[in-house]
């Protein structure tokens, strides 16, 4: 290769940035907590009944906050209504317009029947909500998949990776919610340990699957074509290495996995600490994907 120096080019403008990463994180948490909520009311796993109501409340509230970050990011937020009248079937953002409208509405109906004690309708709207919850987070993966300028994003891995990390962060949040609620808002202050163990088991397998997907992704990028290799090097050895390797992978996935699978130390504080690390890890993952993906200039 010839020695060459870049003397002049126009620096690339950031297209997505931090607000979009936060948006992805919040929709992920919402989808995750919604699915936990339906375990009891949709599928009849009685163990998770204590999380049914709080799960749907959190899912709804988060999904109402999340689109605010889209408005903050957008240059012309007052034109958001354009999204409803000018549609483009090939744009995932256009799909999202409807998912982001239908999903919270369904959450509210589902929650209404749950609080009313109507088991049949709760189950119905819970089951309708599951594909919606999966789509509302899956579509955010497609947003990145279709942004083909960036090697890290233009991959069919994005939707499934985003769905898995959504469930990971959602279950971790539910562990924290269980601990906080039982400790502070019950008379006995006794934490429901059986529930915690159930969530812990779920988190274990989700973390294993998430690690498999994330390491496959980075591995294939590293041995892939030029732009893929460059962005993988950025995450593995470059400016993003402390965030990707340490904060996201080691502290956010591997270490918590060890904590929740080590039987001798299994306790409420350990579960809480592991869940907190996972939540920080997934937030870092969103930032790594969004900011790392568009970090390398294109020309």
């Amino acid at each position: 290769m010839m020695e060459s120096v870049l003397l002049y080019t126009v620096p690339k403008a950031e297209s997505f940035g931090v607000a979009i990463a936060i948006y992805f994180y919040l929709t992920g948490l919402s989808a995750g907590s919604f699915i936990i909520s339906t375990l009891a009311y949709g599928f009849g796993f009685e163990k998770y009944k204590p999380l049914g109501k709080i799960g749907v409340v959190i899912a709804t509230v988060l999904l109402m906050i999340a689109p605010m970050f889209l408005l903050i990011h957008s240059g012309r937020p007052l034109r958001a209504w354009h999204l409803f009248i000018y549609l483009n079937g090939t744009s995932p953002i256009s799909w999202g317009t409807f998912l982001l409208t239908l999903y919270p509405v369904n959450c509210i109906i589902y929650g209404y029947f749950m609080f009313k004690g109507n088991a049949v309708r709760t189950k119905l709207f819970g089951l309708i909500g599951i594909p919606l919850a999966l789509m509302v987070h899956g579509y955010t993966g497609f947003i990145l998949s279709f942004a083909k300028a960036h090697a890290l994003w233009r991959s069919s891995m994005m939707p499934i990776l985003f769905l898995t990390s959504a469930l990971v962060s959602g279950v971790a949040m539910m562990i924290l919610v269980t601990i906080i609620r039982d400790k502070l808002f019950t008379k006995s202050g006794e934490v429901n340990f059986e529930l915690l163990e159930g969530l812990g088991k779920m988190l274990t397998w989700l973390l294993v699957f998430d690690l498999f997907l994330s390491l496959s992704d980075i591995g294939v990028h590293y041995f892939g074509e030029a732009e893929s290799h460059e962005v993988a090097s950025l995450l593995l050895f470059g400016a993003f290495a402390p965030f990707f390797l340490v904060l996201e992978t080691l502290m956010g996935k591997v270490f918590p996995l060890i904590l929740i699978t080590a039987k001798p130390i299994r306790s409420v504080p350990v579960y809480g600490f592991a869940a907190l690390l996972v939540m920080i890890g997934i937030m870092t993952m969103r930032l790594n994907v969004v900011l790392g993906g568009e970090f390398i200039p294109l020309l």
Partner: protein
Amino acid sequence: MSRTRYGFLIDLRKCIGCRTCQVACKVENDVPLGVYRTWVKQVEKGTYPNVRDHFFPIFCNQCERPACTQVCPVEATYSMDNGIVYIDPHRCIGCGYCMAACPYSVRFIHPTRKVAEKCDWCWPRVREGHGPPVCATNCPTGAMMFGDLADPKSQIARILARESAVVMKPESGNKPQTFYIGFDDEAARHVDVDGGHL
């Protein structure tokens, strides 16, 4: 007669890197400070005394299969019949998705209008019959040529038929319609992770 399909041809063997195109565009299109619809990337290859500077005038390629129009959620950016990709500034919501999709990073958010903007080969000027885009008109060495690819008698079509010309990043699948002669692909792809400008 078939419909017009505009194309651009840049003969890099004639380009002297004077950046007249960059300046002319700023004036013609009222492009604000800090952003550019066109610029001349400069990469120096080799070491003294065997050295050469490569110049690459970069602007929107007005792709045949543009990624930007595919992802725009409100169809604010679209391909016209003549091939030029245009942006409706009144419809754009400034979400930045087109910027994320463009492999040539020629799009930007206008600092005050807060909507996406890019080169449109001076369409308002061409439409009114004021001649080719200003970058081509002002190029002192005649390195830039604008014309109708669909008309086999046009100068651009005749040159493209005979000379070997390439497009930037053909693997994008966007089918860009800006062609280069004397193009050093390795130099053109040179990027610095920290941005790299003077």
